[in-house]
């Protein structure tokens, strides 16, 4: 895949990254591994006390998936920036799919528009990466 990657053509789509459905175990592991121990993501009692029906995934878990999408396409040392807006909650059991598309190439830097979408079509995250061209 790397050999075929083209970094400099507007409209090029990155190969999509389809993740596993997010289980409660995924959330427990990510809470520990990421250091984000906010109980709203792992403790049903706390989620309910805040008026929610259930816990929901950390936004940073989806952004970590998205960074995998980018760095398996372009080496990490080319990544100049990564940004995201968390626009919808990711429920437990949802399956995120990460996508990206080159929207601009200027001054040796490619801009990639990024998104994370669930199977029901909900867009949970929109973002941008900038990648230096070799």
């Amino acid at each position, binding site marked *: 895949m790397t050999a075929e990657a083209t970094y400099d053509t507007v409209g090029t789509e990155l190969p999509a990254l389809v*993740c*596993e459905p997010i289980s409660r175990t*995924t959330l427990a*592991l*990510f809470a*520990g*591994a*990421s*250091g*984000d*121990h*906010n109980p*709203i993501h792992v403790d049903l009692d*706390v989620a309910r*006390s*805040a*008026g929610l029906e259930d816990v929901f995934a*950390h*936004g*940073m*878990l989806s*952004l*970590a*998936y998205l*960074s*995998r999408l*980018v*760095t*398996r396409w372009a080496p*990490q*040392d080319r*990544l*100049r*920036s*990564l*940004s*995201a*807006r*968390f626009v919808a909650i990711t429920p437990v059991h949802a399956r995120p799919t990460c996508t990206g598309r080159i929207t601009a190439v200027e001054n040796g830097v490619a801009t990639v528009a990024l998104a994370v979408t669930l199977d029901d079509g909900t867009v949970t995250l929109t973002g941008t990466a900038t990648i230096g061209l070799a």
Partner: protein
Amino acid sequence: MAIDREAALALELPPLEAEVERGALRFFARATGEERPEYVDVAAARAAGFRDLPVPPTYYFSLELQAADPFAFLTDLEVDLRRVLHGEQWFEYAGQACAGDRLTLHSRVVDVVTKRAGMELLTKHTSVTDPSGALVSRLGSVLVIRGES
């Protein structure tokens, strides 16, 4: 309750000394579905040109959370953590940190704005530097604090 904006902007958040640990990076890789060898195996990382296991792009955010109580500044501002959502996050990269590195993080609340229905947006910026003082990464978070319903 509304955040005291002046108090938020004046907060002196203590610098954080964070050590990047191989085991912690492997745990993060496992928790995020990252199976490529350069992110979990030191020899593979070196073969890929890294000094040691590389810090993946979003892990700088996790370094911030190594503080003893990373949400203390929100508690100090009387924010109910159950009402906090992560609204936006960005990273800029100036270098590449690896396992074994000792990094220093400086954070500051740079803005608090009130939106509709008492919703507030708090923006925090953090710089990550290596022991020589060279910038490794800058990151920014926008936290959304939902109003009382």
